Structure formats: C-alpha cells, structure tokens
C-alpha cells in the first residue's frame, strides 16, 4: 500500500470521502486540502511512533563504505537512521573481519589515543563522527594498503513517507490496513484538537495498535496467559 492509498483509506474511514466523492489522486487535490494535510500528518506521526518504538522489518537494510587512503570519516547511506543490532559492526568479507565500535566512542578514543586521527593502517574500530550528517570515523585511518576495501554494514533505514507513491513499510496489505486504522484514530483526535493526549490511554487506539502488532509478528501471538499447574 502506498502513501496515497493509505490517505484515501484513512479519509474514507473518517467519512471525509464518501457519497459521490472520488478518491484523491494527488496530495495537491484541493477539494479536501485540510483533511489531506491532517491525514498525512496522522500517518507520518503514527509511523514515527511505530519506528521509534521498535524495529519493523522494513527498516532493516545494508549499506557499504569504501575506504580511501588517508580518509578518516565516511558518509553513511542517505536514508540511514541507525545501525542495526545491539553490537553493530562493519564487515570486510575478504578477510572475514568485523570492525566494532570503539568502546565509549570518539570521546574515549581521543583520551586514550591522542593522535588517533594520524594513525594509519588497518581499521580496527569505528566511532560515530558527530557532524551535520550521519558519518562514522575509522580507527585507524586506512593507509595505502587498506584503501579500496568495501566494508558492509546493516542499518535501520528511514521509512518515512512523504510523496504519494512512497510505500508504507509493511509486508502485507493487512498490516498496512491495520496501521491505517491506528492512524485514523490519531487523525480523529488531531481533528478534535486532542493530538497531544496520551494515546496509550485511548482504548480504540490501543485495540487497533494491538491488531497491528499481532499481524506483524512472525509467529502466532499468545492466546492464553497465566500459570500452568500440574
């Protein structure tokens, strides 16, 4: 399901598109301009809530960096959000080498090895390089021998939707439909000017969200809870 289809579904669930109304074909359709804007916000907010809360399968992907002689910092993928896993690493397959994060990051590295920026050789650690874009630094900085190597990494990508044909990040239509149900409830509350309430106290919202999580599980959800005796 793409973003446009999701918005249409949300608008229909909330009785905005009904009667003789046709589905919208573009977000610049001004017949329902205010409702379209609000439904986009509801879907985006709901998606942000979901991905900030947990990992959804659509987020995981992989990227790579190619070392360059004397180049210490490297840009990560444009849609990079964060590295995947509890102990993320960069992997050089030729040598079956894992490069892990320097414990404590650059802050600790600069204390332990003051000339870490000038050290040349085989990269053995990485650290987050804080700047205006998502970048990592390598320690040691690759020398001529270790230039031209491709290090792959797994990461969580940005699944934000913004234009009509962006796909909603779900495996199945039923997941996407259930997601729209949660967004539709958020839309209702936004429209009522109650967008700042604690959604975890709203029974309608929680029911829709539970259904979504049940569908997103790779195994059947538990049906019974409690202590088993004997």
């Amino acid at each position, binding site marked *: 399901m793409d973003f446009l289809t999701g918005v249409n579904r949300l608008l229909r669930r909330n009785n*905005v598109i009904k009667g003789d109304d*046709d589905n919208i074909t573009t977000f610049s359709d001004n*017949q329902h301009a205010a409702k379209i804007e609000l439904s986009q916000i509801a879907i985006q907010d709901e998606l942000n809530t979901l991905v900030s809360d947990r990992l959804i399968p659509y987020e995981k992907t992989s990227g790579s960096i190619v070392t360059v002689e004397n180049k210490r910092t490297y840009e990560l993928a444009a849609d990079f959000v964060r590295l995947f896993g509890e102990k993320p690493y960069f992997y050089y397959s030729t040598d079956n080498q894992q490069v892990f994060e320097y414990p404590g990051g650059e802050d600790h590295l600069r204390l332990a090895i003051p000339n870490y920026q000038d050290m040349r050789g085989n990269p053995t650690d990485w650290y987050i390089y804080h700047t205006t874009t998502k970048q990592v630094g390598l320690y040691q900085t690759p020398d001529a021998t270790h230039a031209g190597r491709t290090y792959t990494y797994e990461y969580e990508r940005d699944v934000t939707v913004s234009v009509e044909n962006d796909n909603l990040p779900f495996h199945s239509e039923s997941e996407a439909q259930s997601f729209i149900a949660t967004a539709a409830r958020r839309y209702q509350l936004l429209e009522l000017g109650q967008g700042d309430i604690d959604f975890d106290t709203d029974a309608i919202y929680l029911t829709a969200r539970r259904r979504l999580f049940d569908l997103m599980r790779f195994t059947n959800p538990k049906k019974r809870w409690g202590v088993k005796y004997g």
Partner: protein
Amino acid sequence: MADLIFGGGLNEQGSTEIDSQECIEGYNFELSEIDTHFRSRNPFEKQGTAPSVSGGNTINGFIQLIKQDDTKTTLVQAGTGIFEWDGNSTFTSKGNLTTTSKLRGTTWSLGGYSVITDLLKTTVVQKWDGTSFGTLTTGLGGDLFAKYGLVYQNRVWLFNVKSGTDTPHLIVASAFEDPESYNITSRAVQGSFATGLEAFYIVAPNLRPINGVAIWYDTLIISTEGGIIYKLTGSDANDYAFKSFYTGSAATGVETMSATGNDVVYIRKGGVIESLGATDKYGDTSTDDLSLWIRNQTRNITDAITVYDQNRQKIYFFIGSKILVLFKNKIGSGFSPWSVYTTQHSSQFTTNVATYMRDPFTSEDKDYVYFGDTSGNIYFLDSENVSGDDNTTDIVTYRKSLYLESDQIRDIGISGRVYYHRISNTNLSMGFEFGDDFTTQPCNVPLKGPPVTDTGAYYGGEFYFGGDIYFNAGFQFTDLIATKGYSPSGKGTGIHLSLTVNSRQNFDVIKITDQP
C-alpha cells in the same frame, strides 16, 4: 454556519442588511420562486443572421405583427434594410430606409397591421400589414415622425412627434378606431369636437420632451425628460388631460420605461430603478426603489433598454455590456430579486434593440426576449436548446456570500458537503476568503453528470435533442441527491465563500453545509 442556500440575489448594501441566502457579488446565477438552488442562467441562442445592406447590418429593430387569427409575421431592421424574417435563415427584403433609424412597432389589432415609429425620428411613421411595408396614411399634409406609439382606448397614440417642426412634448392621438387619421391642429379640450371621437393632439403639461410611455392598469402614463410623470385622465377629446402622477422624478434615457404586468418600471436620473406601483402606493420612499439592493450596478446609468419577459416573470435592463435582471416573483420575498447577466461571447449583450416577442419560426406559442448585435446576428435569451452562449461560449456563474462566522471556522476551519443534482460534469470552484488571513483558499469540487452508460435517449434520437448530452440528468440519477465533500486549508474569524462555475453545461447545487 447554517446550511447555505441561494434564495436571494445580489445585495450590495451594508453587511447588516444582507441575508445569508443573498450574495454580495455575483452574476449569471438564476433565481427561482420554487427552490433556493445555485444554478446558471440559460444560455442565449443565435436564431438567424440578417443580410448586410449598404450601411451594415446592425440589428436596430424588431416589429412583430400577430393578427387576430393568430398568424404572425416578423420584420427585422438590419442597418437600413427591412426584412421579413421567418425566424430561421430566410430574410426577405421589404424595403430600405433612407437614414439610420430604430424602428419600433405597436399592433393595431382591429386593422391587422402594425404602426411603426422610430426612436430617432428620422423615418416617418410606417405601417406593416404582414405583406407590405410602407408609409402610414395619416391624413396630415406633411410627414409625421414619432418616437413612441401605443394603442389606448381604441386609438393609436403617437408620442414625441415631429411634423415639420420638432415637437417632442407633443402627442397625437388618432381618431377613434382609425389609426390612419390624425390632427395636429385640434387640441384636446380646447378644440371643437362634435363627438369627442375625433383625432386630436395634446401636450405634456410641462412642455418637456416625452421619453417614456406605458399603460398601467388601464392608465396611460408618460414620462418627461428631466421632469415629471403624468397620467392621462378623461375619456374622449373633450376632456382628455394629463395630471401629475409623480412629481418627484421621471425616467431617464429613451427606453428605460416599461410596463411589467402589474407595474411600470423606469430608471430615473442617477440610476435608480423605480416602481411606479410602489410610488403610487407609498409615495416617494425607498419602497419604490427597486434597485436598492444593487446601487453599485445602477449608479449613474443614463440609458437602458427595459424589457419584460412575461413568460419567465423577469425584467431585463440592457445597460451596455451586461443585463441587470429583476426576478419579479422574488420581489417581496425579503431577499434581493436581482441577478446580473454577463457573457464572454463577442456580442457582450451590447444591442440597439431588445424586445419580447413570439418565436417567429416555430408554430408553438413560445415567447422570448430577442436582441441583436452589430453583425446582423439575432439572439434570444433563455434558450434550452444550446450548450453555452451561442452554443460556443462558456458561461461564468458566480456568487460570493456575505461574511459567515462560526466558532468552528475560527477554531478548526471549515469543512462540509455540497449537495447537488447530477446533471453534467462541471467543476464547482469554491473560494474561501478567511477573515484575518487575507488569502482566498481554493477548493475545486468536481460535480458529476449522469453515468457513462446512461445516455438518456428518451426522445427517440440517439441522445436527448440529438446532439451533445448537455443537460441530460440521465434516468438513474434523476431527482436523486448527490454530495461531495470539501475541506479547504485555513481558518479565521469567518469566511466569504465564493462559488464559480465556468462551463457550457448546466448544474444544480442544492445547498452547502458545514456538516460532514
């Protein structure tokens, strides 16, 4: 905001004097006595093109003669040419005028002919008997020119005449039941009359040029230029006299005064459209001011052609580039009875003649308001046969509401639904002018027509009227109500809501609500 319906017309007064059913701006919308919908006027249709003679083919006059046996013939004055017109493409020459004129006719039913006058008084009084066009016998020694004519108390009365000397204040009345006998030496009352049935002349008491005549409830009314409105009293040449009817004002222009069934309307100096009936009943008060609602439209109008469409109960004021339209059946409704007709068509509603007459072509008794342009084209208003003006041109229908306020508009914005009948595929452009926002948020609502599979071929042809499906509601959706949502961006203390449809198709918006 209550449901927005459209029972009233254009009202340019202060906001506290405007009802939500009216509009503060608008044109080309129609008003109805049986519903409160937003719909377009019908288009005008071209029915023929007169040939050109030397001096061009500007349409200057229509004369229609309907005899007692209900046979009809129609003359068209195109330039200086006089043609009998069959109501279609056949124009048969019946003569040529020597100078530019604007001929107008009045029917002498007893004799079966029309007496024809000339607003420019350059052509002598003429006669059309359905076969030949020629000078009317008057019994006078010299030529008789007259600006206006009408039949009253079994005589033909000619007003603002010239016979040798121009005497615009003078009226001649034919002998009783003899429109070919006039007298310009025997003055009513003062003359010597054996029976009182003789021909005579009479003058406007203030001796000013006569610029409007009408009959109102069996009373002959005349207006004098820059003067007074008089009514005729008496019953024959021995006692006919003009008495002041209304000293407060008189008509301006040449053809602004017109009988409208139960009233006489005219435009007075300054551009105020007056009702003689209300003046008679209430005196010189705002009650007699029919243009109270549209003072901006009428301000400083100096001339117009006023035509009453009896069939549709509308009074048209052709004022040059547009027509002011007074819906008679809305007078007294509490709402403005006015609309304005404009056109994007090249004719621009600019005409030298407009008249209400029977369709010359059809054998049916159908009456329309006809007008012509400078290229010989003859049109009639309120056609149901064509799509767009002259079957070529979109009609822009527009109205803008007064300022509508509600807590919802202020706090949340506005959204709701448009209720309409599915007639044709048109686009309703809504414009939301939010207070304090100073921008107009657009909202285009596509109105649907009949379903593709419903061709509505119920008149025996392939399509209704055999052409485009231009006002076919189809069978499936006839009288069914459809709705479309709207929800523009923005919020403010209130809105002016403008509605525009630019189309050759008909549409019918029932109401606009602010409910989901």
